[in-house]
């Protein structure tokens, strides 16, 4: 079985990194598509999404789910607590008080919405996982990294050539299998 490689190149600016991606789009490395490319950068460049194509996230679903859960759970939790304590003299007022519970359920909507959004972020961004070998602290400083996943021996040299054509500063490689 042919060995697979992962290649990581560091570039001085976004223009060069984007040109590498454009090269991949033009099939300069046959068999490698833009789906195999990841860009690492010190800032969030607005054009990264344009260059790589739209990639979905589920954060809004997490936020909606969390908010809905907070609203329903908040109301039911309070109603449950109130119903559980009917011993308290209510003075003719209803045991489950809808207006005040709505205020509190609203707060719970937001609290659980935020918590679920955070959970969605951790999962969606694949945080809290062991850091891969392909990271260089230059990325958190001022350089742009491009990772090409799973290339074989032939493609490996073509990727290196493509990187070199666009003034790569440094290249790292990892053999996957």
């Amino acid at each position, binding site marked *: 079985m042919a060995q697979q490689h992962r290649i990581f190149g560091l570039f001085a600016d*976004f223009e060069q990194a984007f040109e590498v991606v454009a090269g991949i789009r033009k099939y300069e490395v046959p068999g490698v598509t833009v789906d195999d490319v*990841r860009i690492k*950068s*010190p*800032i969030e460049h607005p054009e990264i999404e344009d260059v790589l194509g739209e990639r979905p996230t589920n954060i809004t679903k997490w936020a909606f789910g969390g908010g809905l859960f907070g609203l329903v759970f908040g109301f039911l939790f309070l109603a449950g607590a109130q119903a559980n304590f009917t011993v308290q003299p209510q003075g003719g007022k209803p045991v489950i008080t809808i207006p005040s519970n709505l205020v509190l359920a609203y*707060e719970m909507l*937001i609290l659980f919405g935020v918590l679920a*959004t955070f959970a969605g972020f951790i999962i969606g961004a694949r945080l809290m996982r062991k850091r891969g070998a392909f990271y260089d602290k230059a990325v958190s400083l*001022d350089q742009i990294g491009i990772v090409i996943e799973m290339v074989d021996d032939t493609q490996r040299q073509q990727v290196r050539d493509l990187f070199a054509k666009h003034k790569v500063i440094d290249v790292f490689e990892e053999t996957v299998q």
Partner: protein
Amino acid sequence: MSDAAMKHLSDTQTKDIDENIAWAKINQDVLRSMENPRRGYWIAMAVSVALFSVMVYAEVYQYIYGMGPSLLNNSHMWDLYISTFVFWIGMSHSGTLLSAILHLVHADWRKPIYRFAEAMTTFSLMTAGIFPVIHLGRVWNFYWVMPYMTDRGIWPNFRSPLIWDAFAITAYLTSSVLFLYIGMIPDLAICRDNTKGWRKKLYTWLSLGWQGDDRQWRNFRITYLMIACFLIPLAVSVHSIVSMDFAMAIMPGWHVTTFPPYFVAGALYSGCAAIITLFILLRYFLKFEEYMTFPILDKVAKLTFVIAMVWTYLNLIEFASVWYGHDIPSKEVLLAKAFGPYAPFFWGMIAFGMFLPFTLLSKWVRRNMKVLFVVSILLNVGMWLERWMIVTPTLSLGYHPWGWNIMWPGWVEWAMVGGSFGWFGMLFLIFIKVFPCVSMYEVKEMVFHRKRTIYEDVDEMMVLHEGAPTPAEAGSTNAGGS
């Protein structure tokens, strides 16, 4: 920095940030600030610890001797404790709320200053949270406000706005901490990559394995946006609920429908003034002259003025509705505020809260750090007096004549108030020593976008003068800047 150098900088600094600043320098300056603050930092820390120690002593004293030494009585059951609670809740508003609003409207000048403003929110809430607990007297029973299952059958009264407070503040504190933390993750990764020892361990743990790849940035952007959207109504609801502690009580001067917006405006106002104070202090302590610039300070001062005018308007509306409402007890409370024993403090509030903000119209004031620092503190003195003047005069002159009395706070209450500033200062100063209080990656974004805008403008001009080389052709870069 000497006065002459400061004056020179004030006159010459016209941009929010110098777009030619190198990204490596941004990292270097911010990381240095965490290691090597000016001596003023340590003096501020010593003052904060001293104030906090006085608070601890007062609390122990109150714990041993009961609520008597605080001089609270039947009609004045809250007094400075609740006034200061409202003050700190208010203080918490500008940080997160303004940061979220400015983020949504893409006001990029927020980027160098939002981090410490959000930290201010968190620590203000943690300070505010102390007061209801202190006020309980039986501090050890504070958890009774939470609705948990118990065989004793003790359930909180969910119809009480004080319980709403507990829910709202818990939600706000949790959400604000997460908003602050999420916004800090890329910076924590920078710290992780550039530190050693305990700092490296801490930042490695907190940065959650951030590597800055496109998936992480994409999720980060949407998460930050979503939480900002959640936080805006939450912040408004929190101070509305705090206002209901008063507005839903049937007391003269409190039972007013304008209280929620009035409280929210007051909160934003005092928070903005606090941002100015902390801006000036941090700029000095951490040598952030290049990031916390005069033009940004100028914008915050103008914003403070605008919010001050909203608060002034709502204050006048409140007076007018009491005056023309012909509710005699409420009118008597208003007159007692203006001409009774608390009159100096009432007029102090009017002077500092309503009239002093007009000095912010002067460019000289906005560009003079020392004067602006004093003004910002006095604005907050005015706002603290406002809270006191909401609480105490009404409690002095309630509906029941047996409860009429003038009450002056005892040393225990004053110690708690002073100590709360020490507690806040201590937490804040520790934060800026451990975490980056200027957002490195966002300042880089700000520099990047501003530089790009300039090049695009120049490119357009070059097209008009055909034949001249554009900056892009001349070999300009758009990243790094180093």
